[in-house]
């Protein structure tokens, strides 16, 4: 049979096409029947607004997906890092039904962004996009200060129509006069926020004795200072006088309350959770440092 094939190019070509189509049919065409099935729909997941969509298109234009992924895998470290505090904060198929194209990416030169929405206040993102190293020292992300240019909204409506997303005239008008950076931040703040993983994550109170093991231990404060400058100073200021975050010098909270806030985050004020990246010990060291500077003017 092979002898025949070697003399009949048309048959060889057709047979090669058939052979290629077998795996294609099973693993690429057939899954359309299961993926994005209505039964996997998540009610909270909404299409993008005009501003968010424009932000997403800038994300695509700038190739952010070359360094950032948007899928949290059901692995302990992935969930702890990118959906902290939750047990089931990994990505679900129903979250992506409005993503044309998907932006899952293939390399995490920077962190995953599937759950970035709501992690930081908008002001954090503005500062970070303009000068990443000011917020994250030693980061290798390029500056995107040029996104402060006006957003081109001339085909926004056509885009919404092409994707079949609902919109109001008010939403379209809201895009006008915005900068590209506004759109980008609007997009980032939506990411991962359509499912209630964050609320579920911080619902439970911390159990155990919230007592600082480094109380009265000067060494804890010294290390705490370093940790503070790496993780907290960007928002609360090197001098603890506050900026994006609240001032800490005159904070009227017990150490236990501060621990809960740092460990679990405070959604209402846009305070991210640090429990899963710092761990208890380092959080207490930071608190030791903050306490040592209490009352300073």
């Amino acid at each position, binding site marked *: 049979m092979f002898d025949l094939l070697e003399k009949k190019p048309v048959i060889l070509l057709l047979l090669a096409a058939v052979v*290629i189509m077998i*795996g294609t049919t099973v693993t690429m065409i057939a899954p359309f029947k299961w993926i994005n099935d209505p039964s996997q729909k998540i009610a909270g997941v909404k299409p993008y607004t005009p501003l968010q969509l424009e932000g997403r298109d800038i994300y695509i234009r700038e190739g952010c997906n070359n360094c950032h992924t948007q899928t949290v*895998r059901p692995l302990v*470290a992935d969930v702890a*890092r990118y959906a902290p505090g939750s047990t089931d904060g990994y990505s679900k198929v129903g979250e992506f039904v409005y993503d044309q194209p998907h932006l899952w990416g293939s390399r995490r030169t920077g962190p995953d962004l599937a759950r970035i929405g709501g992690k930081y206040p908008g002001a954090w993102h503005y500062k970070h996009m303009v000068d990443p190293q000011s917020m994250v020292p030693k980061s290798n992300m390029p*500056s995107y200060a040029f996104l402060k240019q006006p957003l081109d909204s001339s085909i926004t409506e056509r885009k919404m129509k092409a994707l079949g997303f609902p919109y109001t005239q008010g939403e379209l008008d809201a895009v006008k006069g915005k900068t590209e950076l506004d759109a980008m931040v609007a997009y980032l703040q939506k990411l991962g926020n359509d499912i209630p993983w964050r609320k579920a994550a911080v619902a439970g109170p911390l159990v155990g004795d919230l007592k600082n093991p480094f109380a009265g231990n000067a060494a804890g404060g010294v290390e705490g200072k370093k940790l503070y400058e790496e993780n907290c100073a960007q928002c609360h200021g090197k001098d603890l006088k506050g900026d994006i975050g609240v001032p800490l010098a005159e904070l009227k909270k017990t150490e236990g309350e501060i621990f809960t806030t740092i460990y679990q985050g405070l959604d209402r004020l846009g305070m991210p959770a640090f429990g*899963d990246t710092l761990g208890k010990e380092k959080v207490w060291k930071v608190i030791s440092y903050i306490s040592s500077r209490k009352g300073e003017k």
Partner: protein
Amino acid sequence: MGVKTGYSDEVTKGFLFWSIIWGLVAVLVGVLISFQLVFPQLNFPPFLTYGRLRPLHTNAAIFGWGIGSFMGMFYYITQRLTKAPIWSLGLARFQLWLFNLVIVLAAVTLLMGYNQSKEYAELEWPIDILVVILWVIFTVNILMTIMKRKEEQMYVSLWYIIATLVGVAVLYLVNNAGIPVSLTKSYSAFAGANDANVQWWYGHNAVAMVLTTPPLAIFYYFLPKSTGVPIYSHRMGIIAFWSLIFMYLWTGAHHLLWTPIPDWVQTLAMGFSIMLIAPSWASVINGYLSMNGQWHQMRDNYLAKFFIFGITFYGLQTLQGPAQAVRTFSAFIHYTDWVPGHVHMGALGWVSLILFAGIYYLIPRLYNTELHSVKLANAHFWLAVTGQLIYSISMWIAGVQQATMLHATNADGSLHYSFMETLTEMYPYWHMRAGGGVIYLVSLFIFIYNIIKTVQSGSATGETARATGAA
């Protein structure tokens, strides 16, 4: 070669010339972006940022350097194996122009930020249409040449060429399906997990149909030509061919392990990836066994060195790849620098070494001369291999280290390292990688110098003239 028909090799010359240019662009951009990862101030927004340059790097490498050389070599090989001239020289000439137009448009639009975001399918829809026209012209011309052949039996290289023509067409058309909203903007026709699954069916089989079957076609043709030894087993070649093109198409989802696509698709991809070791290594072993009794050529014949190292890197690549396709290992190294380390062993080691060898073989024959300097070719070889190994090995170590740190937990179950703590550990490796890239770039300059000197010493009328002259 004693051939008495009027082959035409001017298009081959053109494709080789331009593919070398695009290959140089790919490596230059690669070196630049490797430094950008270490020194973010080397990003010059808006046009020269990592996010816009990286697609240019991959497109120039895969399509400019890879496809460009394949097109040139396929025209050469097909004419010899069919003992027939190119079916339409006019179409082939037009194809060369169109090819360069597409690559230039690709470079310009990618820097402008016009892209579909899908890896290796970034180009926006108007360029996609040009690519389709390009591919149809190429396919028709090669197939018609084969139809009008004067040699009835088709050698194994021709099967790989035919599979490439069909495979690329299917992949490209499906994955680029989109909804245009303007000349420079479109949305994918597929959404979310479906889009991801289609994309990696495409992405991984671009590796099959662009970075595996064409270099194999070239290897099977030029290894015997360069060394004088026949391929060890024709039967093994047949079995390897059919099982390779059968199994590859099942494996795309190994890029999506642990993502929300159905588990059974992931499991099939994992299983078939491991099965792929067999046909891949059939080609490797076929290459090795062909050299039986001729291993001294590794010392005497610089071309043998390129081919055998190339097929060896193919062998290593096709062991490492299946390992990465296993769920547990993927959980560990996916999204880290391990993967670029893997990719570059294939791109710089396997595909490029085979292409260099093909070009070294062809240029002296096309210009009726001898290679300017075998010594320089050897220098090129060792520098290229050294640069590539520095790149890959440093990235494998970096990947393992970052993966270990990302997965490390404290006694209370919290993560031990913040993301930034793992990133700052990568800087020394990224310096090494950039150094490896610079070494590779130097090797490329030596190669180009050697080729230019060879062309200058030759006459514009090479093998064709000799052949027709003898007729």
